[in-house]
């Protein structure tokens, strides 16, 4: 008898942890018109969605995902017809290349003129004629550092990442391209380089960095927390995350090294699975409205491509490099190009070689 109780306890403990692991999905009402939206988690002010529903009478089925790769899998599974999706530029490019994105006349949208032309120019790298996507938020890859131990001059160059003085003090990104980018740039190559020899050279620096015990950890989501807790002095991370950490700890600051870095743009696009393009365009037009973009900025705190949002900010927010990259910074940055399957496999292989080193 006793045994049975224990195994029951064991099973229930397992079941509880299994259940909490998978989240529930929300269902929407079937009445009237609907719009199925797929976006990153916590990437929109919920009141914005409510307001859109109220103003247009369209019911929004809102779904979220964590990583672009997860979005790709979700979209390709085809069980849900998404009307409009937001993702990172390299994933948008991949889907454009695969012919999964519909061409639209975004220029005809009422609020398209609100978009910052500088960012639109940058987005030409993956959407040449601006017919496939609408920028939503953007930012840079840079160094978040602790002012008490590191001076600004040190982090003005990527070379500080390879300096053995910072033993156990540097956090790198646990994602292949973001960690290879500074190594490639330090070697004088583009962060979109796919030449095997160049990648090998970059890998050698990264291996040496690991050998010299400079790397405290390879983190993604934990970077901000670790830096707030002052576990390391320098961290490679995205501007938005840096801004979040800086708001929590006044000792932190953010720098985009002079050699250049990555500029990322998260963009909306209308996929082939869209069932109602008019409604999807209505939604995108709504997001480009000044007051709506303002609301979303207040919630997300990343750089908004809507000109008026930046204009209305206080000077300290406006000049915060971790929120709004200056035009100088943007000029020396490069956008990731989508990798072919072969190149992607090549990168993954080198990355695993580094991690198991």
């Amino acid at each position, binding site marked *: 008898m*006793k*045994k049975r*109780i*224990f195994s029951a*306890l*064991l099973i229930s*403990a397992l079941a*509880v*942890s299994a259940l*909490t*692991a998978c989240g529930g999905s929300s269902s929407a009402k079937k009445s009237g018109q609907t719009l199925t939206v797929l976006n990153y988690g916590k990437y929109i002010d919920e009141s914005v969605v409510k307001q859109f529903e109220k103003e247009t009478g369209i019911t929004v089925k809102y779904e979220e995902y964590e*990583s672009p*790769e*997860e979005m*790709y*899998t979700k979209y390709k599974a085809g069980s849900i017809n998404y009307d409009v999706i937001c993702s990172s530029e390299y994933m948008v490019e991949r889907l454009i290349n695969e012919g999964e994105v519909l061409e639209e006349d975004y220029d005809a949208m009422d609020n398209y003129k609100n978009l910052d032309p500088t960012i639109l120019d940058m987005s030409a790298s993956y959407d040449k004629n601006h017919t496939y996507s609408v920028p939503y938020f953007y930012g840079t890859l840079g160094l978040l550092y602790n002012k008490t131990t590191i001076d600004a001059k040190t982090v003005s160059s990527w070379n500080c990442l390879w300096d053995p003085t910072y033993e*156990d003090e540097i956090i*790198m990104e*646990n*994602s*292949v391209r973001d960690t290879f980018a500074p190594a490639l740039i330090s070697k004088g190559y583009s962060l979109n380089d796919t030449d095997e020899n160049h990648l090998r050279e970059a890998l050698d620096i990264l291996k040496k960095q690991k050998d010299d015990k400079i*790397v*405290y*950890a*390879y*983190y993604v989501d*934990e970077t901000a927390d*670790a830096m707030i*807790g*002052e*576990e*390391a002095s320098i961290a490679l991370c995205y501007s938005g995350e840096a801004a979040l950490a800086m708001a929590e700890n006044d000792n932190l600051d953010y720098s985009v090294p002079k050699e250049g870095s990555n500029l990322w743009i998260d963009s909306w696009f209308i996929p082939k699975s869209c069932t109602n393009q008019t409604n999807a365009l209505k939604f995108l037009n709504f997001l480009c409205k000044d007051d709506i973009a303002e609301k979303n900025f207040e919630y997300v705190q990343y750089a908004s491509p809507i000109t008026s949002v930046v204009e209305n900010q206080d000077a300290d927010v406006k000049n915060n490099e971790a929120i709004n990259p200056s035009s100088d910074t943007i000029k020396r940055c490069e956008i990731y190009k989508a990798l072919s*399957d072969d190149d*992607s*496999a090549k*990168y*993954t*292989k080198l*990355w*695993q*070689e580094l*991690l*198991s080193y």
Partner: protein
Amino acid sequence: MRKFKQQFLAGPYLIWIIGFILLPLIMILYYAFTNGDGSFTLSYITAIADETNRKAMGLSLRLGIICTIVCLVLSYPLAMILNNMKIKNQGLVVFIFMLPMWMNFMLRILAWKLLLSKNGVINSILTGFGLSRINIINTPTAVVLGMVYDFLPFMLLPIYNSMTRIRKDWIEAARDLGAGNVTIFLKIILPLTVSGIISGIVMVFVPSLTSFAISQVLGGGHVLLIGNVIEQDFMQGMQWNAGSGLSFVLMIFVIASMTIVNIFDKEGEGTSIC
């Protein structure tokens, strides 16, 4: 009629097996033995011999074995102490050991991360007393610690269960016939708990061999287990075929370890009963 009813009741379970066990298995097999174009290949299976994968597999095996041994060494005496305790409600004591399992295991691992980190709770206390810090976060040691912490109940319970089944009068009889403590332990207690030890080993070794979340959180990217390689193949690199190939190899390792254990188990039971 009754037979039909019984079969009918098994229906949902059958659907479960087909939908959530058989179909995914077939899909993994399909991906593992084909390349992107859908033609047959063995390259994803032989990829286990690549240096990276071999290292990751070796590390997984090593940490899995260490974790299992530590769990066994900790659990066995503990089970004996629990079993010999002269309190009325032993169930309560075991229940207390089970209690942490009611919390999600990821949460508990994240808590360990906070405890162990460079400026974490443990190091703050140590430096407060003027002692030196312990820097085990982001090392294999931290990963083993996390695994042991998570999987210990899976070792303790089967051993404890097999111990409660040993009748006290057998031990008294042995004592009457002049057996010392060591003899009683070696001739009675150990042989009768072999089945518990065996199932404990399987229940600890298999999850620690295949785990990837613990090494992710407590290893800080420095500890690459085979589970992490597979996870990256699927989630970051979108290399479904490569991931499936390694999953298949990992399954072989799991099945092999269970088979070995089963052989020992039969021998163990054979000697203990006769």
